[in-house]
């Protein structure tokens, strides 16, 4: 039997393994270049997370659309995870019907801007009825009204270096001087998700104003990822080429609490 594991076989194995290793090196460089490596690629789970993110991004190379339902499919119960921010700024803006609220968009954009709720509502609006699942397992279908994220991004003019759109809500300390001290439910998405035609900045739900629990006055909706990715209570959106300098550098506050950055599952 031992003759069958001959020297020739061992040499073949060596050459094949070397070819495989260099092939993986090339793959790693290509993956990085085409944005197939998530910010939380380190640690024990990084390998699995990178494979999932890269595989799904390649699978969705062309914009795949989440299913759109009809009004009769809308769930009677739309549970809320978490509560509206308790900080003084949010309470004051909420009491004033968010008339004084402004959405700041800056970073790698040609025209950093502020938008009031009224200004956003004057932009072309869209309605989407899609399914939203929570990390925990429950789910519901709702209708969301808002302005397409890509429309707003085109208004401010995204610079070609931008790789991520980062979202900060009132439940984060977004006004921290040092971005590394930002904590809370901030999140980020890649440009593929940002330019997706169903990605929405929503100010209405099921034909009404966005309720406080669901993220009033404005929230993100990305239907191809778990609900937690759709940041609520938006205050500030920034475009960047790296998320390494925000919080602990994993691209989302949730990663610091143990949840993976990419949530297409």
């Amino acid at each position, binding site marked *: 039997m031992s003759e*069958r594991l001959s020297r020739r076989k061992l040499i073949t194995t060596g050459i094949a393994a070397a070819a495989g290793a260099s092939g993986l090196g090339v793959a790693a460089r290509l993956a990085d270049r085409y944005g197939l490596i998530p910010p939380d690629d380190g640690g024990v789970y990084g390998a699995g997370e990178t494979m999932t993110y890269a595989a799904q991004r390649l699978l969705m190379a062309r914009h795949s659309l989440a299913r759109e339902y009809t009004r009769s499919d809308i769930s009677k119960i739309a549970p809320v995870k978490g509560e509206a921010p308790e900080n003084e700024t949010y309470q004051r803006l909420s009491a004033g019907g968010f008339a004084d609220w402004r959405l700041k968009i800056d970073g790698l954009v040609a025209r950093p801007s502020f938008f009031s709720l009224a200004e956003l509502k004057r932009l072309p609006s869209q309605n989407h009825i899609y399914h939203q699942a929570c990390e925990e397992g*429950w789910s519901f279908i709702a209708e969301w009204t808002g302005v397409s994220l890509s429309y707003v991004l085109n208004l401010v003019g995204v610079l070609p270096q931008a790789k991520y759109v980062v979202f900060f809500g009132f439940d984060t300390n977004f006004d921290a001087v040092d971005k590394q001290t930002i904590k809370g439910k901030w999140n980020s998405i890649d440009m593929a998700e940002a330019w997706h035609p169903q990605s929405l900045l929503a100010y209405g739900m099921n034909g009404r104003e966005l309720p406080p629990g669901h993220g009033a006055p404005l929230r993100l909706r990305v239907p191809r990822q778990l609900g937690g990715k759709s940041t609520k209570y938006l205050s500030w959106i920034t475009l960047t080429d790296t998320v390494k300098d925000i919080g602990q550098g994993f691209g989302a506050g949730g990663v610091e*609490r143990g949840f*993976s950055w990419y949530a297409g599952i």
Partner: protein
Amino acid sequence: MVAFRYGPAVFGAMIAATLMAQSTYLPGLAIQSSESLDSPRHTAAVRITHWITAISFVGLLISGIAILIAHPRLYWGETGALGGPSLIDLPIPFMIGHSGWGRYLHFLSAWVCVLTGLFYVYSGVLTQHFRKDLLPAKADLAWSRVARIVWNELRWKRPTEDESLTYNVVQRLAYLGVIFVLFPLIILTGFGMSPAIASVVPVVRSGFGGQQSARTIHFFVAVALVLFLCVHLAMVYLAGFTNRVRAMITGYSAARKERS
């Protein structure tokens, strides 16, 4: 780049595994025994994929439970939430806070399990493992034979060493069911829960009747796999734990001194 740190090692292991599958029995891995009656039992490909699958299955099971206990309530259709009707309320308390690492571990284990499974199926077709070792003979499919085997196992009757050298018809059907029905089904229902994959291939969700139906089926297939594992372990114990585990590690069954 960290993700690719282990890449070359994994790739090398796969190449080595292919070669081992070709050379079938590696003398170096076998326990050197003075007894010449040791009989070849499992190929290297079967042994290596068996143990990697076993480890990844433990990872999937632990993380699956961690994810499930965040919301131990099962639904049917597209949606389901607290306050609405459920299909089954599992008698487990709601424990939020484990689904984060649970999901990380679940997908890491899933990748290992699926890639190992693909390699196993590929090598099983190549070496005719399925045709030779698992496909039951037509004559063996008679109900009387199946019933006799099950009856013997229920009576806890130890199989003879000759019987241990090949799979009986019940084993063949159970293994084929796990490999070609339960595993594909649990992978597909997993895809059905993914909003990203369902946006590319909607039928993985609609085919099961919706996201929550896919989740419920995923749960029951997992239960079926755990039941299979329990019976599998019981049968390994019945057939002689040390010798069977030794066969799955070294590839050889030790010759039994006493004749049963």
